[in-house]
């Protein structure tokens, strides 16, 4: 079954958790013991309705405040697809969580409170989904029940949002607007009986109709080697396989390939998924392949098609999202993990920070604080083989590791 991952973002009180809870409830994905727990807690809190947001809040501290923190993964499925929702906080101090959720998602839901319209947080959430190049964005204009289900208000919000579209980097992103009421259930799973002026799909209809082939961009196949498999047993005496995941496109037996960094040319001899030999490794499949020639290959090397090679360089410029409490300064040294490769990197230059409300850039910066987005240049101790992020989401992205704390301090998108 197809798995579709959706990042959800919204301000505190925008009803994001209620929307997800409602989605689960209306698709019969909430089990009776969970519904019981929601009924019990709703009553304890004195509500006269079922508070579906209780289905997604998890950790103790936040439950008391009624605010979600961290990335919560919520699973449900229909007959068509399996869904994973990466529920992330709306607060600006959890921008890093949003970026994390969006990085592995193919679709995103941005929530707007119909009473407030497009606000700073809306712009930031949209900015992040655009930066991460999430292809499908649904703008759910929520709480329509509190604005008398007004078509006027919906249209105004839609037009305000449209103003942002001109500013965005990723122009091919698809945006769909849906007026909803998560509390009442309008247009989440069931068509609204009140908003007869809206003739589009419900949220679930829209998600169900998303075609998988449209969500992933096709690029050049890249195969970063995770490990070398050498059994050295009697049955597999001469077997030398390269294990990894294929990204961007597919690879087939007989393809002429280049191995980096050695630049040795060879052909793919065989491809295995477990003990099954296959003709073609589709994108995102974990396979083991053998090559015609004996070449010295180790973890971190890349096997790729001869035409359209990646850039091989010891420096690059990237948009980065800084996630560490420790400031990033020019001259600082970090570890950059690009796929399975790790290199040492030095911050060469901070060009500017980018405002997440589409209002422009700030050029007089030399250091970055947590949640800053900026254009930064790095110099590496060893070359890596990369693509521009806009051409290859996987081979154009990296994480920055703070070598003292080992934490993932930032994420980068190569320009």
């Amino acid at each position, binding site marked *: *079954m197809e*798995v579709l991952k959706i990042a959800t973002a919204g301000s505190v009180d925008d009803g994001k958790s209620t929307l997800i809870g409602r989605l689960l409830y209306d698709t019969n994905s909430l*089990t*009776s*013991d*969970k519904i019981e727990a929601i009924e019990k807690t709703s009553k304890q809190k004195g509500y006269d309705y079922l508070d579906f947001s209780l289905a997604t*809040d*998890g*950790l103790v501290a936040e439950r008391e405040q009624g605010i979600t923190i*961290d*990335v*919560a*993964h*919520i*699973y449900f499925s229909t007959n068509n697809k*399996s869904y994973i929702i990466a529920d992330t906080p709306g607060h600006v101090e959890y921008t*890093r*969580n949003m*970026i*994390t959720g969006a*990085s*592995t998602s193919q679709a995103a839901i941005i929530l707007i409170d119909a009473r407030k319209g497009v606000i700073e947080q809306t712009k930031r959430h949209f900015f992040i989904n655009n930066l991460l190049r999430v292809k499908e964005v649904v703008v759910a204009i929520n709480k329509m029940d509190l604005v008398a289900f007004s078509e006027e208000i919906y249209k105004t919000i839609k037009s305000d949002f449209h103003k942002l579209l001109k500013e965005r980097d990723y122009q091919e992103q698809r945006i769909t607007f849906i007026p909803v009421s998560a509390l009442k259930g309008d247009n989440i799973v069931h068509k609204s009986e009140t908003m007869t002026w809206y003739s589009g799909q419900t949220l679930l209809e829209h998600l169900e109709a998303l075609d998988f082939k449209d969500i992933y961009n096709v690029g050049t196949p890249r195969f970063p080697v*995770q*490990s070398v*498999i*050498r*059994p050295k047993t009697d*049955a597999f005496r001469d*077997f030398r396989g390269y*294990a*990894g*995941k294929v990204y961007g496109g*597919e690879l087939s*037996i007989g393809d002429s390939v280049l191995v980096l960094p050695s630049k040795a040319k060879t052909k793919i001899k065989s491809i295995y*998924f*477990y*003990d099954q*030999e*296959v*003709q*073609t490794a*589709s994108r*995102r*499949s*974990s*396979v*083991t392949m053998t090559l015609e020639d004996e070449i010295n290959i180790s*973890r971190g090397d890349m096997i790729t098609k001869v035409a359209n090679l990646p850039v091989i360089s010891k420096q690059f410029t990237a948009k980065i999202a800084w*996630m560490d409490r420790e400031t990033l300064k020019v001259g600082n040294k970090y570890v950059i*993990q690009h796929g*399975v490769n790790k290199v040492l990197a030095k911050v060469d230059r901070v060009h500017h920070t980018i405002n997440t409300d589409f209002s422009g850039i700030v050029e007089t910066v030399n250091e970055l604080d947590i949640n800053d987005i900026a254009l930064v240049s790095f110099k590496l101790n060893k070359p890596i083989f990369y693509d521009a992020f806009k051409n290859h*989401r*996987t081979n154009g*992205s990296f*994480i920055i*590791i703070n070598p003292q704390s*080992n*934490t*993932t301090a930032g*994420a980068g998108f190569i320009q």
Partner: protein
Amino acid sequence: MKNTSHINPLENEAIYIFREVVAQFEKPVLLFSGGKDSITLVRLAQKAFYPSKIPFPLLHIDTGHNFPETIVFRDRLTKELGLELIVRHVQDSIDQGKVIEESGRYSSRNALQTTTLLEAIEEFKFDACIGGARRDEEKARAKERVFSIRDNFGQWDEKNQRPELFDMLNGQIEFGQNVRVFPISNWTELDVWSYIEREKMEIPSIYFAHLRKTFIRDGMIWTNDDAIVFRDEEEVVKERLIRFRTVGDMSCTAAVLSAASDILSVVQEIRDSTISERGARIDDKRSESAMEKRKQQGYF
């Protein structure tokens, strides 16, 4: 010959994760309970490293309260696949005075496992423990990472977990820390069962309907084994046709009435079910934040 496009993305992802663990860590180990999730992990590990053998041992923290069928199954599986199995017993930790046995109606050895586990990690210097936890199981697990960083007390601080972006897994740790790895984080209960069915995997018989001596307490069905499961005089024992949906210890796992005797009927039953998988686990029912608290103490 075909291509790999039909392969479930979840399977591809799990294999990728297994390969990363072995590449990034010195001494990984697979925490094996004999339950369906850990059995699934073993199959995925086989696929990840073929044609080489699985390059790490299995570790079972034996509470002494296991369903005997699970132990029989465990031994047979490890023998068939030629896997290295390490067993450490909670009973030993009790005998050494390191933990105190609970008593009374709701007693179990579930929380005691943590001490034995941490000791085993120390003994063998494991730096990565692979487990079958899934995010759909329970609230605190919903926020877990694939690589979950624990300190040398096995403790989990939810405020310090690393963001996981794209496919990249950052397993960098200091000496003394270790990482819990969850390759089937994104699998649902149904995904696991569908996989078991598709792969024609063998699982312990207690997952299927069978007659068992049981008694009712708090509206749930408990195994009758007076040596292990505390029972009051008034709690009457009767034979019932039941099966277990989740397999923990006898002392903290409730059964469900069922006639599902093969995998397809089990899958159908789960699809139709309105109780979640862990709804039958008393160790979770103790408080809403039970799992989170246990994780903070180093539980798996």
